[in-house]
């Protein structure tokens, strides 16, 4: 019960700070409206932040690891954009679409979402469905499906769970 209250208080501070960043000027009106809105959001949502099972993710080491993941992801996004642009503008359209089914044992919902979204953002792959540990991934070219096995993204997700 106390843990829940602490979580809600933390969420209240984060959401109110976010509201004040977005509002054009910090006035009494904007603070009052923001407080009311944030209280309603917290009252109507059960678990806005990570659940108890995922609480080890709060450590500083994990947050730094997550931050070091951002440049990797940005690089992948640029590569994948150029890749798809090349395929789309090629008059012959060298594609060979199909499904790849891979097994990645991840325990936490957070890392699962991170992995699935990163796969969608990497060249030529798109997450279609996740059933427990099985990921159904659509690939655009054959090379893309080969790149999925033992990828850097998977290693990052694994390291986050340790």
């Amino acid at each position, binding site marked *: 019960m106390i843990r829940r209250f602490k979580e809600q208080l933390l969420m209240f501070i984060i959401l109110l700070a976010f509201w004040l960043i*977005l509002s054009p000027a910090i006035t009494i009106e904007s603070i009052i409206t923001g407080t009311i809105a944030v209280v309603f959001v917290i009252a109507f949502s059960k678990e806005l932040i990570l659940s108890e099972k995922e609480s080890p993710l709060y450590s500083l080491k994990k947050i730094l690891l997550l931050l070091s993941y951002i440049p990797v992801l940005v690089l992948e996004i640029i590569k994948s954009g150029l890749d798809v642009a090349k395929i*789309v503008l090629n008059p012959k359209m060298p594609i060979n679409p199909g499904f790849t089914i891979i097994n990645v044992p991840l325990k936490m919902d957070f890392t699962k979402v991170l992995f*699935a979204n990163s796969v969608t953002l990497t060249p030529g792959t798109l997450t279609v469905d996740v059933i427990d540990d099985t990921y159904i991934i659509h690939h655009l070219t054959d090379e893309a499906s080969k790149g999925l096995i033992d990828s850097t993204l998977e290693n990052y997700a694994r390291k986050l769970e340790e």
Partner: protein
Amino acid sequence: MLFVHILSTIMLLIGSFFFLVGTIGLIRMPDVYSKMHATTKCDTLGAGFIMAGLMLLTGFSGVTIKLLLIIVFIWLTNPTAAHIIAKANYRKK
């Protein structure tokens, strides 16, 4: 000042180019999943370049933080939306 303007214009042009390629891909690709490939990747990159170009123009102010937040939310929601559309088509059969 002039240099920043040129740089941001180039970035805006690159961003528009990726949006154009994404749209062409949406028309050219044969099936739903392949169409999703074109739109998610190119739109994500295009939006990133356009926001980065605008951030150069605004300099360092409150607006810059808002533009950065727009990129963060686009990059979070774009793959999720693509995933939901692909999943809906996959489970239809």
